[in-house]
Each structure stands twice: as C-alpha cells, then as structure tokens.
C-alpha cells in the first residue's frame, strides 16, 4: 500500500540503485558478530509496500522475491523460484518454486501463499483496509497450478513487469498469518513472517529494530558470494537523526554502517578511516520537472524551457555543492539503468544560447538585469524539496546560474506539510523537484504517462509522448525497446519537460571492519554476504 518512498522529513532520495561495494580484502569471511546500522529516519508502518528509506533497509533482509535482479547487470536470476517461463503473448508468467523453502514460522512456501500475496498487491483488500498496489496495473489474477507452480496473468503485455516481480516493495513474499491481518496488523513488524536470511528479534517503537540470523536459511539468490546462513549473527538498526552522532559513532566503532552521508561530510568519513559507498539510485535522474498546469505561466513557452535548460550548468553544481558520488546526468535515467538513452546533446551549458532563446521568446533584459515582458518580470519561485538533503544547496547554485541569464529565482523552504499543500494548489508551482526510482526504463512511463503520474501536470496531453511510452511497454526485443526509450528521451528533452540536476545517489559510510556490503537493485541494504573482521 501507501507510503511512498521519499515521503519523510529528512529522507533523501528515493530509489534504486545498485550495488555492491566495499573492500574485498580482509581475509576469509568471518561468521558471527553484531552489525549496528544507524539511519537518520524513523521507522514507520511496516506495510509490505512501504518504500520509506529507513524501513526498506530492514525489510529487504526479512522478505524475499521469486526472482533476483542483479544490482550490477540488471539481469534476473532465480531466487525463491528456481525457474520461470513467459508465454509468447507476454500475458502469463509461470514460476516453479524451489523446494524446501520455509517461512520463519515454519510453514512451507507454497503456490497458494504466493497467490495470496499477489492478489493483495493486484486487487487490494477493502475489508482489511489494504489498497491496490499501483505497481500492479493490468493484473488479471494468479493461479496456483500445484503446490510448487504459480501462474501470474496480465490483461496487457508489460515489458517492465518482470522487474516488478523482483521489486522488494511490489513483490516480496510474506507468510499467510501476516497477510490475514489488516493494514495496522501488517504495519507491525513483529507480525512479519518472511523467508529471508534474518528474522525480527525485537522492535523498539519507531526507533529501532534488531534482526537475528536464521540458522536454517539456505536459498540465497543465484550469484551470492556464499551459500547457507548469513555471516552476521545480529543486525541492530537504529534511528540516529543527528548527523554528527552518526559519523562520530562510525569512528568510535559504535556503529558499523551509517546511511545518508551528506556531500560535505564525505571527507570526514574517509579521514576517519571509514569507507564511503555511493550507490546509484537507478531510475529517473533528480530533476526539475516543468509544470504545465498553469496556462499563464512563462514556462508554457518552449523557448523559455529550452533557455532555462541551456542556462543550467550541472558541472558547476556538482563542483560547488555535491561530490563525485553524484554523477552528472546525461539522460533522463540514472547511469546503469538498463536500456538508458543518451540525452547529453540536450544538456550542455550554453549561456549565449540561453540568452538568445529567452530574447527570442520576447523576454527583454530590464533595468535591473532581470528580463521583462509586457511589464512582467521573468521570476520563478522554487521550493526546497524536503525529500532530498541536497535540495537547498543545489537550488541556491541554480539561482545564481539563472540570474546570469536574467532570470530571477526566489527560494523558500516550506515544511513537508506546507510543501505538499502548495504542490497541490499554488499557481506559481512551475518546477517540481523529484525522481522516481525503479531499475527499469518503464519508470518513464510511470512518471510521464498521462494515465499514470503525469509529472508535468499538463492540461493538454502530449499524445506523441504517450504513444511512445505505451509502445516501449509492448516491445520485448531489447534493441527495439532501447530505440523506443531513446525516442522518449528525445521527446522529453526537445520539449524541455525536464531539467536534470544530478544522478540520484545513496551514500553509506562504513567502518573499516565491514566487508561484502551490498544492496539490492534499488539501494536497499542486502546484508546476506556482509561480514565483520575483528
């Protein structure tokens, strides 16, 4: 159900990314020990679809999916399912479950339980207060053919569906006793019954969770560094909102992993002997999406949009307030996202071009250097997005860059609540900072499709873009689909819908004793292969 990712306060980015990390040296892996993981964000309801950063770092280690998306290559590998087949019309996905898998309450993993999970995602459950999962569009149903064979059926082909089946927030398989509970019951982690390498030992309110290793675990995804049970005996997750405390604790050895290291703190971590792990959050780049709902806004003029794009110097933003952990965007998608296009030709900084475009749009430089047209100043209001910790500093650099092109920017910093209510109603909401993360190019359809999020909020639908978005979903040939994604990116940037700022990134600080730290494909910790040296 609900609770989208970035929804919190301090939270940074949402998303996905990939990857493994951390030193390979340190000798043979050591089994045992307790790893302490500090997170800045409090834990909220533990609904299986909760993608809040703090929650998902924990949940990913408790519940598993039928298939595993390799965070590096983006390929799909067997996990709870030992094999699968997709029908020729791409409407039926048949899975053969691995034998001998049990939930943490001892019950076996069966086709019936899988069906129960998918039905709850696809249809929701009104009686239990569980809404349908927006990821599961065009769901026709699931059949349990026999104890170990499941068929998932769709009403329309969807090239992005296989990723959804591997996605922690869309397809984690949980035990029957949890699924029979209502929304609040599912939101209590102590009720969780999963198949993961760790089980919940204790929950301390909204501030902490302790996981302990499951001794009989033996079904790690293909491609893991070892088999059998996890190395770590215990993992302690804890909310530590104060940045200084998180970093200090890494240095003093009190914590071994700290999530969400700000760009200006990165050096403190490495100077203190720690490791810095930057995981690309795959999916869309973090951008300013142009809002086209107000017909009187200057951004309705294509030349204004392209002019602002040309006035944006991403390299300077990166140098001033970010770090090498945040790659420069060269596409609508973060580097590493499969089938990603190349939009670098649209993203060059060119102040002369910006000035020419804005002049051409009829905005002439006024007495104080700010452009004027029909007595109106070219002035925009940007809000610091509460979901991204680098938002304010990035927008401030942008403010000075656009000023050089005669564009005035005021920045305000509303609270989360004010931000959300202004987003819905303010007429001067011309730019929306954001990104949606999923390790699959179909994320562009999720965002830009008029029948989906429609991130530009345009009052006149862009049918060309809609057709392109729908076409790639039905295209199963990788090369043709890649061309389709490129066509979408060309459309987005030639229409100036998006001004990318930086590639979304999740930065972890690790103590020198941590080895084999990995995340699943969207930047959520997967601690199965992680171990601590003495």
């Amino acid at each position, binding site marked *: 159900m609900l609770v989208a990712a970035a929804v919190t306060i301090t939270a940074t980015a949402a998303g996905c990314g990939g990857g493994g990390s951390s030193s390979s040296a340190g000798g043979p892996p050591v089994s045992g020990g307790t790893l302490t993981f500090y997170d800045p964000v409090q834990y909220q309801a533990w609904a299986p679809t909760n993608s809040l950063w703090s929650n998902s770092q924990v949940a990913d280690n408790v519940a598993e999916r039928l298939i595993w998306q390799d965070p590096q290559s983006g390929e799909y590998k067997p996990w709870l399912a030992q094999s699968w087949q997709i029908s020729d019309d791409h409407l039926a996905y048949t899975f053969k479950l691995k034998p001998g898998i049990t939930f943490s309450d001892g019950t076996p993993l069966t086709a019936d339980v899988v069906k129960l999970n998918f039905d709850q995602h696809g249809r929701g459950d009104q009686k239990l*207060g569980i809404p349908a999962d927006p990821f599961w569009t065009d769901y026709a149903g699931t059949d349990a053919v026999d104890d170990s064979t499941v068929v998932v059926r769709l009403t329309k082909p969807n090239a992005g569906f296989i990723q959804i089946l591997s996605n922690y927030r869309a397809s984690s398989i949980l035990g029957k006793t949890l699924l029979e509970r209502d929304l609040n019951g599912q939101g209590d982690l102590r009720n969780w019954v999963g198949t993961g390498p760790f089980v919940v030992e204790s929950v301390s309110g909204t501030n902490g969770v302790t996981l302990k290793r499951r001794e009989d675990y033996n079904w790690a995804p293909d491609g893991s560094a070892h088999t059998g049970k996890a190395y770590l005996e215990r993992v302690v997750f804890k909310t530590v*909102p104060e940045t200084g405390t998180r970093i200090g*604790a890494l240095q003093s050895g009190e914590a071994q992993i700290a999530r969400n290291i700000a760009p200006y703190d990165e050096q403190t971590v490495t100077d203190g002997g720690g490791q810095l792990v930057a995981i690309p959050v795959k999916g869309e780049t973090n951008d300013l999406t142009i809002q086209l709902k107000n017909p009187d806004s200057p951004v309705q003029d294509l030349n204004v949009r392209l002019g602002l794009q040309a006035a944006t110097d991403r390299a300077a933003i990166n140098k001033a307030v970010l770090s090498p952990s945040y790659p420069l965007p060269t596409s609508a998608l973060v580097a590493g996202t499969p089938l990603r296009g190349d939009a670098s030709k649209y993203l060059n900084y060119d102040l002369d071009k910006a000035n020419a475009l804005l002049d051409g749009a009829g905005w002439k430089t006024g007495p104080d250097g700010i452009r004027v047209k029909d007595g109106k100043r070219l002035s925009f209001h940007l809000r610091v997005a509460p979901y991204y910790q680098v938002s304010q500093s990035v927008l401030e650099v942008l403010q000075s860059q656009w000023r050089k092109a005669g564009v005035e920017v005021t920045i305000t910093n509303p609270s989360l*609540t004010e931000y959300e209510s202004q987003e819905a109603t303010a007429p001067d909401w011309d730019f929306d900072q954001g990104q949606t993360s999923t390790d699959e190019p179909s994320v562009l359809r999720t965002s830009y499709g008029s029948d989906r999020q429609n991130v530009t909020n345009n009052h006149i639908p862009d049918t060309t873009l809609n057709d392109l978005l729908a076409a790639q979903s039905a295209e199963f040939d990788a090369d043709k689909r890649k061309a389709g994604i490129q066509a979408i990116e060309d459309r987005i940037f030639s229409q100036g819908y998006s001004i990318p700022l930086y590639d979304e990134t999740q930065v972890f600080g690790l103590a020198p004793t941590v080895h084999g730290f990995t995340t699943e494909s969207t930047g959520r910790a997967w601690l199965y292969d992680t171990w601590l040296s003495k």
Partner: protein
Amino acid sequence: MRRYILNRVGQSALVLWAAYTLSFILLSALPGDAVRNRIANPDAQLTPEAAQVLLNYYGLNRPLWEQYFTSLGHLLGGDLGFSLTNGQTVSALLADALPATLRLAGLALLISIALAIVIALVANYAPQKWTRALSTQLPALFASVPTFVVGILALQFFSFGFHLIPASDDGSLTALIAPAATLGILVAAPLSQVLITSIAATRSQPFVHVLAARGADERYIFRRGVLRNSSLPVLTLLGLACGELVAGSVVTEAVFARPGVGQLTVGAVSTQDLPVLQGVVLTATLTYVLVNLAVDVAYPFIDPRILVSRGGARRYRRPARRSSVAAVPLRPPVAAEAAIP
C-alpha cells in the same frame, strides 16, 4: 484539606479535557493529515479508489465533529487509538517511549536540583567575592547555551574523544549520564537563579538577624531558618520545570539518539500523526497537572501559613514535628543556643 485536594483534582480534569480539545482543533486546522500526505505524495501513485480505501480505514472520511466525539468517547474508555503512520496503538507507542523519557527526565531533575543548590550556596556563602559573583552569573550562562550545543560538545569529548560513554542509548546507566546532565543544565538555570535570590532575600529577614544576634552560626541559621523559607519559590518553579524537561527532552533525545517521548513527538509532528500527537499532549498535560498538584499539596507542609492566608476555615494540623521557621525566634534562646555545636 480534602476540599482543597478535590478542587485541585477537578481543575486538573478540566485542564486535561481543554488540552485535548484545543490540540484537536489546532491540529485539524492545519492543512492535510498523515494519511492525506501519503496519498498526495506523487511517489504513492494511488488511484482515487485506493486512496478512499485508506481514508475509510482510518475513519478520516467522516465529518470532523464526528471524529472528535468518537475519539473523545474512546479516550474515556482508555483507548487512545492507532497511529496513522505506524500501525501500532498509541498506548503501545507511549508505553514504549515513556519509561526511557522518565528515566532521562528524572535523573536530569536530580542533577538540576543538585546543581542549583551548589550554585546558590556558593553564590551566597562563598568567602571570596569573585567566587560569589561568578556563581551568580552561571544561571544566565546555562540558560543561554542551547541544549543541542551542550549535547554535541558532550558527545564530542566524552563519547568520540575519550570513549567514556556510548554515543547512543545502549540501555546502560552510563549512557544516561551525559544526556541527563545536558538536560539538567538547562533546567538548573531557572532553579538556581531563583534559589540564589530567595536565599538572599530570606537572609535579609529580621528573624535571621535575631538568630544571628542570639549567637547562632551560619550553618545553624541555614539549616533551621533559611532553607525552608527560601525553598517555596523553588518548589513552584519545579512544577514549571517539568514542562521544560519535556521540551528539552525532544532535543536531547534527538542529539543522543535515545528513543523516547521526544523522538516520538518529532516523528509525529513531521508526519502530522494526529492520534499520536494527541496522546503526547495528553501525557504531557497529565504529567504537568500531576506534578503541580503534588506541589500544591506540598506547600502547606512547608509553610502552614498558606492554608491560613487562603482563608481556609479549617486550620490544617501539621504533623507533630518541630515548629516552623516563623516560630523560631519565639522559642527560648536557650533551646537555640543549646543546639549550637
């Protein structure tokens, strides 16, 4: 005395109800709520039907007055409702958070009282003038350095520097000392300020001069005369200090990463989790009311004149202890002198 207490209890119930109602009105007047914020978030991508399922589940589709009376009815039955973001009952969340905060606030209170007494004694009785002057300035310093600064400095030196204390709560008493001292310093500021002044004021009263004239030394005068007389204003302030302890614990718990009511509040405020906030408001009000009730009831034990001056028809019979300070000068000088060591 009984009517006095019954009155107080009645007033307390009224205060609780008012706090509950006022917070409900104020929080409902804010745009949005925890569930609508989640629905409005673009990442949630919920269809209108799915959003309706959520609103129905949490009862947020009903008119406001109905929500108010339902929750008030549940409250009278002892049910504080469910958190909108956490899926746990508010009582469970509070039960989880309260003990930690009580430990923190309790130790902080002890530390602040001890600090206040030491500072006030030094400020009034130290032989050197500069020590007295310095001590008099301390409360101002304590009050003006923000809690988070004290907290971060304490962490930097004692935790990350000397590894004396853990940086975040590990359940041990050692982990409690630094945050409690941080919070205690904040609360010690007004306590010591008032105690300094009130000791000075008491010492200038005629009965003190009389005692001194009869040969009592400073220690005797302090123990038998000054202490009790100058503690009344401090007692009043202690009642108020519990408000400061609650407010201070928000910051202290964040800096020291201690689970507790403070952190619960921060989370609930930022997500607009109304039932949790209501629970926190009620708990804080209840504590406040109880502490002040205790203070009110304690007054007459320290100063029996209170009941008399309030026009109470009945004179409260004090326990058969030695007479009050006011009576000291009336006692035969021999008794006083005999007690001088």
